[in-house]
């Protein structure tokens, strides 16, 4: 997706499309790697969970997101596999 496009409230996209400070609800995740998918689920990224993008690393990747009362760092490439709806 184009870099400068900002998703609006109610729009759907991937977690990696969110700008810092945006909140979104997770709709689905699809990942070919079973171990990675399970790990993401175990860390609490399940359907319906609300996540907020807090900050990016100084070089832009990975990204720090808040969910379920804690902070998780995750690469953009993994976030691209997570479908969300902006809140």
């Amino acid at each position, binding site marked *: 997706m184009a870099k400068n496009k900002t998703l609006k409230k109610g729009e759907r996209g991937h977690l990696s499309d969110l700008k810092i400070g945006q909140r979104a609800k997770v709709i689905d995740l699809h990942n070919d790697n079973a171990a990675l998918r*399970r*790990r993401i*689920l175990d860390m609490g990224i399940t359907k319906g969970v609300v996540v907020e993008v807090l*900050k990016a690393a100084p070089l*832009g990747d990975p990204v720090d997101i808040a969910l379920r*009362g804690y*902070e*998780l760092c*995750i690469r953009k490439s*993994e976030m691209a596999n997570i479908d969300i709806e902006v809140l």
Partner: protein
Amino acid sequence: MKIALIGNQNSGKTTLFNLLTGSNQKIGNWPGVTIERKSGIIKGTDFELNDLPGIYSLSPYTSEEAVSRNYILDEKPDLIINIVDATSIERSLYLTTQLMELDCGVILALNMADMLEKKGLTIDEKVIERELGLQVVRISALKKTGIDELIEKIKVYDGKKNSVKTYPQPIEAAIEEVSDTLSDDNNKRFVAVKLLERDVLYNIDSDSVVMSCIKALENRYGMDTEMMIANFRYDFVGEVVSKAVRQEKKGATITQKLDKVFLNKWAALPIFAVIMCLIYFLAVGFVGSFTVDFIGDLMDKLGVIVGDGLKNLGASDWSLSLVRDGIIAGVGAVLGFVPQLIILFLCISVLETSGYMSRIAFMLDKVFKRFGLSGKSLIPFIVGSGCSVPGIMTARTVEDESERCATVVLTPFVPCSAKLPIITLFTGTFFGSLGWLAAAGMYLMAIAIILVTAICLKKFYFKGSPSNFISELPEYKLPSPRYVLRDVVEKTAAFIKRAGTIILLCSVVIWFLLSFGWNFKYGVDIEDSILASIGNCLAWLFYPILGEWSWAATVSAIQGLVAKEQVVSSMAVIAGLAEDAGGASILNAAIYSFFTPASALGFMIFNLFSAPCIGAIGAMRRELGSTKAMFKAVALQTTIAWVLAVIVAGVGNLILLL
């Protein structure tokens, strides 16, 4: 009674373990410090407590989870203490929902209670107790509150288990149906859930009850069972948390404020560079080498005093020589570095406990990804600058298998504390006031070797495997002075102990081999000694680096396999025996007069980057999982070191000619 301590990474398990058992296991404020099971006895009882690696789930995928899961299933502990970081309770209780499915009893220790107020959280543990059907104790492993109550609860634990339904009715029914088909009576509910999750560690027949249950559930909920079960677990936990936890909005926390600076888009990398340079200057540069000179002088004086003392007592020539030229010279040569090591250990310990380590990984992940490594590889590298052995073991925090193996192979390239004596000796002698520059160059060279080798490994060895970076960012914590002190004392004591045992023994052996010829007569010229003849057989290995057939340098370098500081120790013993008048530095002895700055640099490079000491080689073997892989790694390291040393020495000598 056998008790297992289970909890998320960085939840304070090891802190609690140390507190309960009175031992001093390693803690650090980054996820994944504990990598092996450790056991101890709870003070004042006869209960065996087992500290297991931190995990987020009992999934079958990561090695830490496998260790914990196998321990629970095979060793069947009588009780699990589930330690939960109260400040991220929602994620933590997800693991609890899995532990609840085991037959084993669970006591929930709600840790970090001291942090709750600061974060504006109030937790009603009675509600959690009721909703989960578990005993809950609020503790702070750091501030030591609630510990007596926890021990009391363990003592009166009666093995009773409450069953709580975690899932909606259709799933609970399926679990029931599946567990009825199980013949093994152990952990039926747990196994049934695993089967329904299509856990890869269990075989599922396509026409079994399990499969039909899975199909029915997947049709009903429109997602695969693995995701479904994770979802419902989190739903259940969310429900409990909404009843038991209240969150007041608070202003920015200290961690948020600090991150504004330390993870600032522009300032983060410069700050990181400054911190690393500071550590370097304190430990290796100016301050460190000053202390080394100081202790070196002391050791020389000690040699003279002891020598005179023994002479006055009428000691024979050979015993005098053994003590002065063998033991004091050999052991003294490495003991001189103790103050420098203390500074280094102190810096690493503070880095580890403050929470900055995880941020380094976070910051530089993008760079390291390019080179086929994870940002988390940096943690082993930094730990490895203290000692390669723990460095190699902490490579387990890197999840991806090929990245982990690459990290294991690359960690020994980081100059460890035992290599500091080598760096200081050579740069100090040959580069005078520019010594610090040469020493800094060695660290930069280490980084370059690591990155280039990483790329090559990725290109030719671990081809195109996907990698990931998923990590928690812990809160900043003020390092506990008591723990840091203990940590530094322990590591320093280990170094001194090595000086008093292995290095001492080697020095004595070297002294014998130098003082005796093949005719076993004392007092031969060292050129005719046993050691010289052994060295002469192998000197061709180092001729391309040194430009000289030097048995003395050869045998010393080979002894680096025992322990890297032994290189310096051996060179000192040889220098001492070669001539009685000790110069200002070991390397001023006539036997080393062939060294040019270029060949010294080459020789140092070989010693720093070739095969690590036996201890680290053993750690590599364990972590790589096979002797063959270990030999390959050692061969790779030694080849790189040798080639580089030859090139540097050759080019350097050319420059010197100009």
